[in-house]
């Protein structure tokens, strides 16, 4: 191991209470993962024939991918729409997107009945299947993100000839990333096109693909905002309020556009919206509490220019994306079967461990990779 010359930030390398908790969760998750692998899905999860998809699909896969939408959203903003001022937000977004997809892949590994066959879609094709397309897009996009992280590592290792080579083809990576993300973010919603009869009217819509795409942009942007605020706090830097204020103006607009899309869709389908039951409660919470409310909050300059305001607005928006994915994949089935589902401890611990592992890798990444400062002047473009 090479000895480190400089400290990247004060207090580096010490086991803080925060990290200790993350490690404990990680260990619990590893034990749960071993139980899952050796004892099987039936023994360790509460999944059953009536609920073949549970917490792991709702959170690790649907929510994880949507929240990792920051990578392609930021790449599109900076390289395609040329909004260069947001460049400081790009690298953390890429890192967290990569970690988000790692969480997806690991989560999927435990969810599959035959995890070691995870590569099968590569050679066994069914071009009629939306899930086939999603698996290819995720595979390719994770590779694109991995290359992006690799370029950061090359900068760290001072291999500038290689960095320059990758920068010369960088536009290809950006366009591929945006294209693949557009496809699989919306296709994850399109998975649910085939089960309208099982779902509640509130979420069963032919427009679910575009809705998923739009909310993935929201998920990505709100996570980028939260990430910037939290890392400023954790690494004791000054929050980039001015930049975030301008950035979240875009988030607010995205939220209001998404709200309009959802309302138009519900109105066009004539869905029964005003009913007093549990699914409708979650629906109101989602639509008004986590889409409309942060959208309206972010129209105020005072909210956008305060750390607290940004935490609340971006936090609500990110929570809303997660809530939407849970609603589509779990709440929506409430009235369908005489069974109910609540995740088991193993399911919960594996999910928590994935989150904890993600944070620890992010922490590691920010320490070892040039995430917050570019070693070279300027970004590739």
């Amino acid at each position, binding site marked *: 191991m090479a000895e480190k010359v400089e400290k990247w930030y004060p207090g580096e390398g010490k086991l803080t209470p925060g990290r200790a908790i993350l490690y404990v969760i990680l260990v619990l998750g590893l034990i749960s993962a071993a139980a899952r*692998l050796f*004892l*099987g*899905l*039936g*023994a360790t999860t509460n*999944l*059953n*024939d*009536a609920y*073949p*998809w549970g917490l792991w699909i709702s959170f690790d896969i649907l929510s994880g991918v949507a929240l990792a939408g920051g990578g392609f959203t930021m790449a*599109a903003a900076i*390289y*395609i*729409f*040329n909004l*260069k*001022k947001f460049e400081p937000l790009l690298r953390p977004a890429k890192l967290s997107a990569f970690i988000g997809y790692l969480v997806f892949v690991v989560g999927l590994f435990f*969810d*599959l*009945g*035959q*995890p070691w*066959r*995870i590569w*099968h*879609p590569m050679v*066994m*094709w*069914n*071009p*009629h*299947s*939306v*899930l*086939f*397309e*999603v*698996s290819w897009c995720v595979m390719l996009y994770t590779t694109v993100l991995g290359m992006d992280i690799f370029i950061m590592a090359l900068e760290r290792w001072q291999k500038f000839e290689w960095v320059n080579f990758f920068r010369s083809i960088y*536009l290809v990576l*950006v*366009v591929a990333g*945006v*294209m693949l993300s*557009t*496809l699989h973010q*919306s*296709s994850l919603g*399109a*998975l649910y*096109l*085939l*089960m*309208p*009869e*099982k779902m509640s009217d509130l979420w069963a819509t*032919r427009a679910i*693909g575009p809705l998923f795409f739009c909310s993935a942009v929201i998920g990505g942007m709100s996570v980028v905002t939260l990430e910037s605020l939290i890392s400023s706090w954790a690494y004791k830097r000054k929050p980039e309020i001015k930049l975030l204020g301008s950035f979240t103006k875009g988030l607010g607009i995205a939220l209001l556009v998404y709200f309009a899309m959802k309302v138009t869709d519900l109105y066009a389908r004539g869905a029964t919206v005003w009913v007093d039951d549990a699914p409708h409660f979650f629906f109101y919470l989602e639509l008004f509490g986590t889409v409309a409310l942060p959208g309206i909050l972010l129209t105020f300059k005072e909210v956008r220019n305060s750390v607290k305001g940004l935490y609340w607005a971006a936090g609500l928006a990110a929570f809303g994306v997660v809530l939407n994915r849970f609603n589509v994949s779990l709440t929506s089935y409430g009235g369908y079967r005489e069974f109910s589902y609540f995740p088991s401890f193993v399911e919960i611990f594996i999910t928590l461990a994935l989150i904890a592992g993600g944070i620890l890798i992010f922490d590691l990444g920010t320490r070892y990779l040039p995430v917050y400062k570019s070693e070279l002047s300027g970004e590739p*473009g």
Partner: protein
Amino acid sequence: MSKAMLIDTTRCIGCRACQVACKSWHNLPGERTTFSETWSNPKYLDSNNYTRVIFYEAARADGQPAWNFVKRQCMHCLDPACESVCPVGALTKLKNGPVVYDDDKCIGCRYCMMACPFQVPKFEWGSAVPLVRKCDFCADRIEIGLAPSCATSCPTQALLFGDRKALLQEAHRRIGAQPGKYYPEVYGEKIVGGTSKIYLTPVSFEALGLNHQGFRTDLGDVPYGIYGRQWMSKVPWIALGVGSLAVGLHYINKRRAEVQSQKSPEGKEE
């Protein structure tokens, strides 16, 4: 020739010989069961029970109790949703009727279970290396010219095996001959694009109260796989569109920024 099975529920006596025959042919383990309030046994289809007879007690018009026995198993759709959604193509509709499953391809994602409009595919939850299980229409028997084991075991000819076209004709002939005895609709003729298991019932499945036990009547006549295939047919165009739009916008916006910075050398952004 596409094979099918006509299930005339008015002929069924509820002996469950088909359940036993199915277990024998597929080498499935027996299990200890208990009577449920509906007398149906077992209570659900699962990875060890590919078929079961639902017992349903109803009151006739004259006040006498009437039993209905409805055999449930994979419907073997003509255009199966499961085949359409499987990411590795583990499920296939054979030309001669059965929808079969390839143990060696399946990754265990369970999308087929989510997508099946009849909730037929079941998972081996008890196993550490689980696979999906469902009725295979005894594809191996059909291949060598035999009838499925359930049809062979049926003592009352409630399970009629044959060519789908001929069986549909027979079903409509029975309805025409005894209009009072049958509900004038063959379940499976058109639903989700048609199935290879077709049913004759005394009343509609809705009236039997089985429309939430795998015999939904609100599924429509369009095969569900179409929704996924329509989406997939758009995918190459979305990819091409987004890709070229991204490249185009990149150069336009870059050029615009260059022009702007030439106009105002300070290059203000606000």
